[in-house]
């Protein structure tokens, strides 16, 4: 972002070592969540969550359904108030309308007012911003130009999704919040929307997106925040998270304890007490592990190999010693 560039007339011969590195992740946080707790009745949706997003970052909030991702977004977009802790958006309280001038949010596709025409909805949202993208240009960009006169209720699922993302960009936001942007879309439509998000980010925009698909976060995010049961389990660059989350499960029965075998990231408890020799090993490379076991002539039987689901991968992060790393705290 131009704001964060050092002034050009500044003497260039001495670099202040303490100056923030120029690049995407510099400057004051555009989204700052500090120690936020939010309950719904007895359910703790968010438990002491902290998260900073800096200008130009593309952060993926990854977690299973019901993890608290959408609740966190609703605190950042000013819809809800935390029970404790503070949330700042672009330096202000997100519940003040003025703080939301630089914010782009997608409506849920199912929630577009069905009787209004596409152009009417775009004009309505655009009218809230001092310098909106002209409606015709926006619809053109998202391949919706021919639908401008149609009522939104008559759009296909993919068109509604595109309209939802288009609406989030109409005000030229500095921060874009995307809640499960492509859930339920086919591959082509998903790719096209990802392209639009990348384009926005390449232009200097900041993105915070939620997903319960590893694939989606992998396609877009540079930094990944894993959230589960209302707690931040990990906050690290994408490749670090991928190494920990993209695991395979190797299940076998073996008299020897293999939990310390090279390549085994962790083990899961045996299924039952009578089955103590049955072991579940998580590893990044199941093929290599099995080859090693065979070569070392380890006596095992009933081998099963399957992928670890996101939920299983998250279970790992709850374990002691595997908590938050690389977080902005």
């Amino acid at each position, binding site marked *: 972002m131009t704001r964060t560039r050092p002034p050009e007339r500044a003497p260039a011969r001495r670099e202040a070592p303490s100056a923030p590195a120029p690049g995407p992740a510099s400057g004051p946080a555009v989204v700052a969540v500090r120690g936020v707790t939010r309950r719904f009745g007895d359910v703790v949706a968010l438990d002491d969550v902290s998260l900073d997003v800096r200008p130009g970052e593309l952060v993926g909030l990854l977690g299973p359904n019901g993890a608290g991702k959408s609740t966190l977004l609703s605190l950042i977009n000013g*819809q809800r108030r935390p029970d404790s802790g503070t949330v700042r958006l672009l330096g202000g309280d997100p519940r003040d309308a*003025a703080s939301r001038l630089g914010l782009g949010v997608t409506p849920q596709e199912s929630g577009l007012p069905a009787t209004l025409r596409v152009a009417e909805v775009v004009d309505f949202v655009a*009218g809230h911003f001092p*310098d909106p993208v002209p409606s015709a240009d926006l619809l053109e960009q*998202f391949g919706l130009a021919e639908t401008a006169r149609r009522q939104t209720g008559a759009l296909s699922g993919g068109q509604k999704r595109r309209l939802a993302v288009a609406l989030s960009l109409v005000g030229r936001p500095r921060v874009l919040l995307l809640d499960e942007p492509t859930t339920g879309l086919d591959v082509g439509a998903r790719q096209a929307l990802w392209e639009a998000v990348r384009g926005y980010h*390449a*232009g*200097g925009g900041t993105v915070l997106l939620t997903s319960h698909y590893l694939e989606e976060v992998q396609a877009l995010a540079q930094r990944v925040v894993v959230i589960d049961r209302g707690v931040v389990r990990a906050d690290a660059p994408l490749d670090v998270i991928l190494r920990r989350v993209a695991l395979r499960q190797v299940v076998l029965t073996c008299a020897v304890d293999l939990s310390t075998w090279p390549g085994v990231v962790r083990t899961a408890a045996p299924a039952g007490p009578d089955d103590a020799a049955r072991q579940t090993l998580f590893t990044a490379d199941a093929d290599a592990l099995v080859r090693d076991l065979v070569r070392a002539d380890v006596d095992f039987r009933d081998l099963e190999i399957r992928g670890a689901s996101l939920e299983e991968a998250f279970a790992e992060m709850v374990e002691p010693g595997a908590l938050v790393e690389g977080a902005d705290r």
Partner: protein
Amino acid sequence: MTTAPERPAAAPATGAVVTPLRLTWLHLRFQFLESIRIPMAVIGNMLFPALAMAFFVVPQQEVAQNPLWATTAVAGLAMFAVCSASLFSFGLGVAEDRQLPFDPYVRTLPAGPAPRMAARIINAAIFAVLGLLPLIVVAWLFTAASVTVLQLLAGIGMILVALVPFVLLGMAIGYSMPAKAALAVVQVVLFPLAFAGGLFLPPMVFPAWLDAISKLTPTRAARDLLDQALTGTTAYGGAWPVLLGWTLVFAALAVWAYRRDEGRRFR
């Protein structure tokens, strides 16, 4: 759609905001369009006061043929129509809107509660006036009710002022509870208010204690002020303070309920 929107990161120039007036106009246009896209709701709203007039006032010849009584009856019905439309369309309408997923989205747009509420009030006023037209036609054709043009305009002006507290009360109800509860509460609030306010029975037949209570209700204040505008009968002294006082109370309640509301009560 592969091209990025140009200048996405351009920060809005400091201080550049959309004025509250433009935001109100924006929300008014949006709400008006939504209202007229369901024509039956508009037609029902327009017919109700006229039908009530045709069934309850026109057949009573001694009322219908007395210019003063007929005009007063029109005032009472008009006021009841406005009260009921405001309470129902706002109490119930807002509560129903809140259950739609578009409502939480609109709340994330950079507009506070004021433009939305102002737009709702103006939208209500537009449909209230539309709803009164058939009533006026029925009264003009089938009763002895008579007003001068000036009195008619004063009456319409008065109705527009008097509907504000009821719209605000409706919003306070709509933003505080789910639709099913709102429906019950609106009914519980509307009929006692209408009765105590003398919209059904003229307050002249009230016992003194009921008359004293009646004069503290917004409905009675509105009815008497409307009657004053239409017939020249002088309203009781406290009518204006009572109406304006309730307007302030309901405005505060509506804003409180809006701020407290966070959409649906689950994740």
